[in-house]
């Protein structure tokens, strides 16, 4: 169903690391109300 492509869909250059924003993003993916929880 899925194929791996040896390239990024949208490369992101992090110029200014932001730990608080990073925490929000990670929570959206893996947190209790995030993508991962929604898919299980």
């Amino acid at each position, binding site marked *: 169903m899925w*194929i*791996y*492509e*040896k*390239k*990024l*869909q*949208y*490369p992101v250059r992090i110029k200014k690391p932001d730990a608080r924003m990073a925490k929000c993003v990670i929570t959206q993916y893996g947190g209790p109300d995030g993508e991962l929880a929604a898919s299980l």
Partner: protein
Amino acid sequence: MMDLRCKMLDDIRAIEFMAVELNLFLDINPHDHRALNEYNDYTRQLHELKYQFEQQFGPLTNFGYSYSLHHWRWIDRPWPWESC
């Protein structure tokens, strides 16, 4: 400075963006001929660009979706997390 590899990948990404957007539009407007023509046009461009890229820099996909001519280039660097 942006090298040729990154430039070619950026061009591929730009065309892919158009293809995805037209795909989504066509899902709800399947009889729109103008959108269909545009979609096929971008698809043609995408095939050409990916072909050019793979000739120079090796396969973008594995498991039989792309050729690896001359030698096995799949394991060659850079991997996506090492460059653009």
